[in-house]
């Protein structure tokens, strides 16, 4: 039921207090938070830095514009409406396809245009934003996510969380929505977290509700066969967010589009610790190693470093890296 603190620290698990003081407090300048707390700002910034994000169909900033939203979405088969300052996936409405007057959610539920109006109006009045401040609604193109990954998820889009520390990708996991999580990719709501090997993008371990899991609870698909396509490209995209935001301890949420490849969905300046559970490994040794690295390496060098040093042992066996220093990092 309970673990000893020494058991956790010997595995390098970091707790909330340490994350807050030692990493977020030290490496994340509060001045930079608005860049990630406002998804619209993140999106515009990402465009400037050449980081792909889902295409923006339009924004709604005033209640008056709500009535004209049908003109904006005309011609789009599917789209996503989200609050710019929402947190934890709150207020995100996915419309998979349009059938005449009806808008159909992934669950099959049909919404009318009035329902859309009300949802956008709620977003504008700040229902989903941090602290209830007035907000902006963003309408984005639907992500055509990779068919190969669709069997691992139930409804919602599976996203990939990569922790970027000082520009190095240190740990990654995939979040698969389940029936229990109501199509949302939030681990504490019951989504399955799958730890990913930084070197190869293959599954390491799966957890749901903080307990080990070998298959997806709804589709029954084996998690061990999971392999993320274009893994290095995804890591480089995620690592590039360090230059983009200047935040030292960053959670990047990535998705893979069938046609456009890896994309940045959103950023988080206070990423959670559940990723340690999904990987069965603590963040501490990896963060300690990155802290010893000098500043000024470019994205490719940092990703290569991470792939070399943060590989899991099972994978590492088949690789021959003569310059690899023996380290206590891999479990």
């Amino acid at each position, binding site marked *: *039921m*309970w*673990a*000893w*603190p020494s*058991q*956790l*620290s010997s*595995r390098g*698990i970091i*707790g*909330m*207090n*340490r994350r807050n*003081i*030692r990493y977020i407090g*030290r490496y994340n300048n509060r001045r930079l938070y608005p860049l990630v707390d406002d998804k619209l700002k993140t999106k515009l910034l990402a465009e400037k830095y050449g980081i792909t994000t889902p295409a923006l169909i339009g924004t709604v900033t005033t209640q008056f514009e709500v009535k004209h939203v049908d003109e904006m979405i005309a011609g789009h088969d599917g789209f996503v409406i989200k609050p710019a300052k929402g947190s934890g996936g*709150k207020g995100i409405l996915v419309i998979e396809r349009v059938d005449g007057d009806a808008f159909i959610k992934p669950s099959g539920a049909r919404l009318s245009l009035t329902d859309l109006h*009300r949802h956008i109006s*709620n977003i504008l*009045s*700040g*229902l989903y934003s941090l602290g*209830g401040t007035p907000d902006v609604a963003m309408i984005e193109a639907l992500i055509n996510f990779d068919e190969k990954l669709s069997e691992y998820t139930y409804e919602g889009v599976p996203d990939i969380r990569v922790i970027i520390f000082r520009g190095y990708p240190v740990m990654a996991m995939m979040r698969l929505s389940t029936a229990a999580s109501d199509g949302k990719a939030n681990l*504490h*709501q019951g989504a399955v977290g799958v730890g990913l090997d930084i070197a190869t993008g293959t599954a390491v371990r799966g*957890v749901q509700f*903080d*307990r*080990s899991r070998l298959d997806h609870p709804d589709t029954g698909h084996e998690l061990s066969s999971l392999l993320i396509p274009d893994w290095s490209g995804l890591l480089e995209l995620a690592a590039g967010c360090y230059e983009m935001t200047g935040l030292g301890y960053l959670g990047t949420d990535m998705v893979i589009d069938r046609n456009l490849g890896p994309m940045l969905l959103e950023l988080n300046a206070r990423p959670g610790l559940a990723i*340690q*559970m999904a990987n*069965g*490994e*603590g963040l501490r040794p990896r963060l300690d190693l990155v802290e010893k690295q000098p500043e000024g390496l470019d994205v490719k060098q940092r990703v290569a470093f991470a792939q070399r040093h943060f590989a899991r042992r099972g994978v590492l066996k088949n690789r021959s890296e003569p310059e690899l220093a023996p380290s206590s990092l891999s479990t």
Partner: protein
Amino acid sequence: MSRLPFYLLVGLLMALGIGTSLHRHIQMEVPWTPGEQRQVWEVEAIVDFTALGNPVRVDLALPTHQRGYRILTENTASPGYGLSFLQDESGRRAQWSIRNATGSQQLYYSVRLQVTEDRRQRQMVRPALREVSWDRPYDTAAAQVIERAWMRSSDPYTFARELIHDFSEDRQGENARLLLTQFERTPLLVRLLNQAGVHAREVSGLVLEDGRRRQTLTSWIMVFHDEENWALFNPRTADQGQPENLLLWEAGGRAVLEVQGGTNSRVTFSMLSRSQPAAAAVRSQLAEDTLLNFSIHSLPLEEQAIFQTILLIPIGALVVVFLRIMVGIKTSGTFMPVLIALAFIQTTLATGLIGFLLIVAVGLVIRNYLSYLNLLLVARVSAVIITVIAIISIFSVLSYRVGLNAGLTITFFPMIILAWTIERMSILWEEEGPKQVLIQGGGSLLTAVLAYLAMNNPWIRHITFNFLGVQLIIMALIMLLGNYTGYRLLELRRFKPVTED
């Protein structure tokens, strides 16, 4: 990034807090626990005299704080007389005055003294040596007595002792007997001491004995060794040192009672010893207006009551900080539990819990309906506030009708905080389901109950109210907790599966 300034600051706060608390405990005799008993003497002085029909002025010496005794309160009863308290370096005095008085007069002065552990001797001004002249044949007798005592002594104290010995019953010599026929014992001894170059004065003390009435002051001799050190001698037995039960009433070398316009004046004393809780003794202590003795007790009673509550809030904050950082309990609204706990203090725990659950439950039902109306946020929360007020009013009236007066205390709940709690819980319910509502609501209630238990503890109330330095210690503790990077208690459970592979 050095943490040294941080630890210096915490250390400074800690030292300052402990220092001022110790100072208050030792200097002001404020006890650590509220239940401690302290002995208190009530002494009443009655001044009797016969007025002659002219303007009257009565001047009475008063006791001051001294070794072993601390003055708590003092009162006078003197119908028709004007009264003022005077203070100079020789001591405090009360002065009564009246334009016209005839016949037997009685003036009352009563003082409550707390017995203290303070053993330090009071600083006294050393009296100057007086020129002494004797008539014949007393001059030779005095010189011989001094000579005899001088030979057998080495310093002022031993000299005084030998001198007094020579005047005690069994060793009275011829010279001593001769001098005693002409002079009063105590003034005579002071005179002889002065002649020998020893600074001394006559002082008056009251021997405290429980339940005694119509007592008079006894005279004692204060002998100075040098500028600062002095000792008290009993002029009858030559015993050195102040007896435990001796209260120095007049120590400035002046008359105890001076009456102008009256005759047959005298002052008598009656006294009573009582035990009372130390907290009550502290409360009745006279406020001394120096910075270190800075005390909430110098405020009017009503403001004191407000401060008693305000000074408890840091305790509640400490509980919240501890539960969140060390334990990892989730609450809805960071310091909402402290405000709920403050309400519990007014309502008592059982009625408070029932009231809180009733208001929040009914509020959630009504809030659920409001969400169908699709209102903007501020308007909706305002509507919830009005709903909460309505619920509180209805419950108050209902419980009063049923005869439950405890129900009336429900009005102590902070309504706006409750409205926000309901709003937050309701959103939590919609987004994360009832389980999270139970976890966060339960966490908030648990925190509130623990904060209440801490804040309602009589010992903690006593300590926070009487020792302001404790606030600095709490501040230092909270800062230390804010620096804690270890695991939270609940994380030991959360991360347990990681250790199982």
